[in-house]
């Protein structure tokens, strides 16, 4: 939609603002911005193009605050072009790519390169909001030049992929990032607890003869971060929460008013460590899939708001890298295209929009579509009945490393607009 252009989407299903349940809505877009969303028919201006939504459900575009798009350096797994294509199909209008590329995104040149690749390959979006490295080379030794990264376009700072082992460095990173208004996304992992782990530590790891990492390997750093956030009165965002101990600590912190926010991923509310007795590397991820009790606690945390948002932690790996003995396999799942189908049975549409879009935008200071007049016309249509198989034909990511490979999921994005421009 370019200047002066008007567009009307008719008959999109959405919960009515007055709480009277699902109703067909009409949406008027002018100049790429929301002009009006209302139940029933609205009068289309005579110069407007009109499209029928066919009763599909209308969502504001999602934002993925945690993904690995692998460019530069590991383009055989994914690149920004394929990663953003996967995002488009998954309903994500914006992606925050992590800094563990090669070279690491610890300087303006890499940040700018990422933004250029996004602009070149996806000029209409999804938007890319790079996450800069917390430490130089992610080595956890010295602070990365956060001012330079912020100026180049980084919206947050993270050492994701590795926990920061030095508490003094982490404290200084919180303070220095605050100088530039950058939120820290912390990958909480004490590397001395179970170095070289392969899965969660439990009866399942004992049976498999694999080194396990306990949930406290995550939670001890969650506790550290919470105490520093309170002491410094500075915010911290906790990445991919997986253990029930972490959920309890965050609950406690929020009860005290400590400025902490947290995210988790679909797999931590759906899969436990008893699900793969046969050394299936498709289930190997960091943090590891934990026990059924952890899964229940994390899901409850999302339901009651202790965990603020969902992210994909989209982590593509090539097929040959995963077809090795379990202890040689890299950790991670792709997630951009399965996220909505996996979480739509767990939460109502309003909650889905909150945990995948609105709250995410709030935490990272990004713009999101709240369907108020003037909001960016970022939205998609979702067919909750459409059954599809996770396979090469349907997945736009370069990689297929997901526990749901070959399975049928229900619900898929069928059309997606950003700034009123129809991506597909």
């Amino acid at each position, binding site marked *: 939609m370019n200047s002066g252009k008007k567009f009307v989407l008719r008959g999109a299903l959405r919960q009515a603002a007055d709480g009277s349940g699902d109703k067909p809505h009409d949406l008027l877009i002018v100049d790429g911005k929301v002009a009006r969303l209302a139940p029933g028919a609205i009068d289309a201006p005579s110069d407007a193009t009109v499209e029928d939504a066919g009763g599909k459900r209308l969502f504001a575009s999602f934002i993925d605050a945690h993904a690995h798009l692998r460019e530069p350096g590991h383009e055989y797994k994914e690149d920004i072009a394929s990663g953003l294509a996967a995002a488009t199909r998954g309903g994500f209008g914006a992606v925050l790519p992590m800094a563990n590329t090669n070279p690491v995104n610890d300087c303006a040149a890499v940040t700018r390169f990422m933004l250029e690749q996004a602009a070149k390959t996806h000029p209409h979006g999804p938007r890319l909001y790079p996450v800069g490295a917390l430490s130089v080379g992610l080595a956890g030794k010295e602070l990365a030049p956060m001012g330079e990264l912020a100026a180049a376009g980084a919206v947050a700072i993270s050492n994701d992929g590795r926990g920061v082992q030095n508490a003094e460095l982490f404290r200084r990173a919180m303070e220095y990032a605050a100088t530039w208004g950058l939120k820290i996304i912390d990958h909480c992992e004490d590397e001395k607890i179970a170095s070289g782990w392969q899965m969660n*530590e*439990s*009866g*399942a*790891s*004992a*049976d*498999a*003869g*694999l080194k*396990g990492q*306990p949930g406290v390997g995550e939670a001890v750093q969650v506790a550290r971060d919470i105490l520093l956030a309170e002491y410094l009165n500075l915010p911290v965002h906790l990445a991919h929460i997986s253990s029930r101990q972490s959920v309890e600590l965050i609950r406690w912190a929020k009860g005290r008013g400590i400025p902490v926010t947290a995210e988790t991923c679909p797999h931590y509310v759906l899969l436990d460590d008893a699900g793969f007795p*046969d*050394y299936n590397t498709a289930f190997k991820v960091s943090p590891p899939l934990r026990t059924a009790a952890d899964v229940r606690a994390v899901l409850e945390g999302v339901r009651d708001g202790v965990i603020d948002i969902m992210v994909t932690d989209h982590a593509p790996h090539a097929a*040959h890298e995963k*077809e*090795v*003995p*379990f*202890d*040689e396999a890299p950790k991670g799942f792709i997630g951009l295209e399965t996220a909505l189908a996996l979480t739509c049975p767990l939460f109502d549409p309003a909650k889905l929009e909150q945990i995948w879009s609105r709250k995410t935008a709030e935490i990272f200071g990004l713009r999101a579509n709240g369907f108020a007049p003037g909001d960016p016309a970022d939205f998609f249509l979702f067919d909750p009945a459409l059954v599809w198989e996770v396979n090469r034909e349907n997945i736009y990511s370069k990689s297929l490393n997901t526990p749901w490979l070959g399975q049928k999921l229900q619900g898929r994005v069928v059309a997606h607009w950003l700034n009123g421009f129809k991506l597909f």
Partner: protein
Amino acid sequence: MESFIWPHKDLLDVDDLTVQEVGYLLDTAEQFQEVNSRPVKKVPTLRGKGIILFFAENSTRTKTSFDMAGKRLSADTFSLAKSGSSLNKGESLKDTALTLEAMRPDVIVIRHSSSGAARFLAERLDCSIVNAGDGWHAHPTQALLDAFSLRRHWRAQGQDMAGKSLLIVGDVAHSRVARSNIKLMAALGLSVRIFAPRTLLPMGVEHWPAQVYDNLEKAVSGVDAVMCLRLQLERQAAGLLPDLSEYAARFCITLRLMNLAVPGAPIMHPGPMNRGLEVASDLADSPASLVLDQVNSGVAVRMAILYILGTRNEHLPAGQAEAARN
């Protein structure tokens, strides 16, 4: 040998086997034990069969035992060690496995440092896979030969295995020998006891079919047999133990301790032994020691396994053999 439908292509761990199948396997091993006592210790059973011994982790005794077992059955055995293999040139396990299979072996015996490596091969190859030890996960032929040794020991006294107790002492957490033995011995009706420092017990051990003891004297008291596990010296470097002299003083099985056990209770060790650390030297050399008997049994048990897998269902009519394979 009697007719018995063996439904398994591979031997990956003991819990794939029913008690009946274990019984058949041990009975078969008894017959090979007899062969091994003859002046000419060779039968033509597996003539024309090829067995690859793929040892991606160092091993002397297990490899020699399998090699001898294969040769006594007249099979051709081929050894591949990690140092001589393409694994050192960056070849993936998948490609090594496919390459070996392309040479049409009947059985591949694999030892590998990765838990699950034997299953990895079994899922990809049509030939039989025998797990000769994968990471910390499983060592089924060791457990089977231990069961064979104990069965013979007690049978010689007119006693049954079922109802006996076995104490396993040492590094359970990192031991594939312990994992396979606990499962097998419990399945055969033994009550299994465990004693180890907490740092060498895995989280979740309480779900295993074994009783964890917190005192060595209590653990040994009235027990029918004791099995020591090898202590890898790197556990001390990893901070799991204060020092080896403390371990020797508090976890080593001695003649004095064995006085608390049932009189004549055998002492076992999968080898190689650290004398004075896991088992006292005089105890290792005493009549109670089953250690060399275990090694001796190993050849017969491995002959039984190679025979069963190498001739699997060959005596059945073609249709039935095909059905048994599926």
